[in-house]
């Protein structure tokens, strides 16, 4: 995973609520066994409309999306996050971001930020004006810098560290292998088992 520290880029406003992962990555792009080739799928159906914000200058180069409520709701498909990243998106800001999608962002190094609706609206206004579309997102400082100053955001420490280090999350957990083994030895709950080579 690519570490995230400071990112400067163009912000685009997509204020619609409940933009679901079917819209972010339509089903015809889900028939793969790898993560590649998904840039073309990002917002594929919306992009058929020449008026869609990401089809217009300067937002065709946007790497920061200022979104509406409940962005990324619906299907768990991580293809949505892979596609957004391959399209060039590095930061998503919204009043709320759906749970599974939010987790998928973090695992892939896409910075997902939730802010109060008023803050998001102010950022959306800036992003909608070609004169003020450039933002600098500073994760260590927890701040978004723009033409009107700075908007700060909260992020739990563990998530911040994970994004800044860009470390493999499986490796991080395996550092606590002894805790998992201890749980299995002492506290396992009754659960079904299928065929297994482990006795």
């Amino acid at each position: 995973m690519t570490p995230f520290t400071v990112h400067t880029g163009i912000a685009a406003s997509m204020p619609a609520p409940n933009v679901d992962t079917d819209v972010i990555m339509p089903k015809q792009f889900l028939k793969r066994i790898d993560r590649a080739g998904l840039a073309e799928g990002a917002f594929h159906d919306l992009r058929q409309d020449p008026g869609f914000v990401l089809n217009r200058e300067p937002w065709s180069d946007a790497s920061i999306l200022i979104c509406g409520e409940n962005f990324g709701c619906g299907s768990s498909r991580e293809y949505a996050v892979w596609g957004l990243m391959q399209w060039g998106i590095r930061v998503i800001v919204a009043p709320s971001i759906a749970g599974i999608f939010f987790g998928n962002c973090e695992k892939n190094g896409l910075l997902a930020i939730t802010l109060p609706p008023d803050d998001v609206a102010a950022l959306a206004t800036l992003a909608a004006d070609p004169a003020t579309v450039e933002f600098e997102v500073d994760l260590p400082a927890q701040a978004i810098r723009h033409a009107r100053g700075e908007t700060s955001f909260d992020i739990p420490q563990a998530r911040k560290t994970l994004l800044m280090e860009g470390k493999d999350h499986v490796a991080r957990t395996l550092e606590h292998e002894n805790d998992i083994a201890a749980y299995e030895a002492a506290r396992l709950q009754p659960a079904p088992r299928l065929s297994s080579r482990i006795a």
Partner: protein
Amino acid sequence: MKTLYEKLLDAHTVRRIDDDTVLLYVDFHVMNEYTSPQAFAGLHEAGRSVRDPGRHLAIVDHVSPTRAIASLDEVEDAGGRLQIETLAENCARHEIELIDLFDPRQGIEHVVVPDLGLAWPGTTILCGDSHTTTYGAFGALAYGIGTSEIEHILATQTVEHSVLKPMRITLTGAPGAGVTAKDMVMAVIARIGANGAAGHAVEWDGPAVAALGMEGRMTLCNMIVEAGARVAVIAPDGMALAHLGGRPHAPTGDAWDALAAHATTLRTDEGAVFAREVEIDVAAIAPLVTWGTSPDQAAPIFATVPDPRGDADRRALDYMDLVPGMPLHTIQIDRAFIGSCTNARIEDLRAAAQILRGRRVADGVTAICVPGSKAVRAQAEAEGLDAIFREAGFEWRGSGCSMCLAMNDDVAATGERLASSTNRNFEGRQGRGARTHLMSPAMVAAAAVTGHLTDVRKL
């Protein structure tokens, strides 16, 4: 004093990561062909192995054709076929049990798992699919995850869990005729919004929940995801245990007694505090249909298409090609679909068949029924339901996700309008430009025979 969610969480916490996150032990993990291949690829690239293969099950369901085929070669879609083959290779390599297309147990994962007796009270069950919450009907802590988390579970048998706020939805009263669990959950979503349970673990409670059968309870736990819930759970009672007992993977003997005793502890303590409470009297609910492109854009069937309250509503009405003020029951349909993990269990098929008996699908309407699993299909056939569907003019198909997300070859055409027993009416969900109205299976049957959205109580 703890809520049921908090008890399940405590019992599975391996370690606390920070204030908001715990490392959660995963008792059982289910996977499908379309969200797992990259997880295995990641595992292989890192040179890791599967920690405990006996705690995983793989099921082919999302790309399954629903027409009878004799071999994989007949799966016309090359991408889907490759995913099925890749899942088989990965399962063989890691000694993971696989239910493939030709297995008599095959079906939609969330239908198959409870039917095989794999949804045990008090367990954690995760799956790379958002509707994994279905198993909460048995008192399991169950939820959907992404592909990176699948890889994490394969390697570590754990997942990093963001702690949720407990929320209780209490259903009181007795439902009127024609009002099903689907109408109840749709009414809740319409009330609280598509974001209304975001960040929450929902516990369903109240006399109207206790009065539902397990199929209805699964429908509640399944579809509340459309209000943003990450987890849904119902305290397991005698009915949940009775449903589990005797199934192929249910425990027996002393293990059964231990599980049954454990299940009685799986309930929210008196006085435990929920971050949010919602109460709905189901006696006041009428059968609902959606009119928009988000599951919360729903109204009782006797209502009219509402005036838009903002840009999102306007866009939805535009996509759905509907005009405010138009009575919902006058909306003509092109297709009827009965299927999905929300509503393709035996009770759902019985309810639809009751409407279809002695009736015919209206001219110009294409109607298909896709039972949730081969076992459900066989059960329905044993009861003669298939004959009722066929005589009414429904196609009687094999099992799978089918037109719920249209990843196989069951796809609606642009502009077509559907009455559907599924869970998502998103733009393009059932086919690019297709227009979906969500409703209960009986309401789909009613729409199919009249050719327009119809109050099932009037038939």
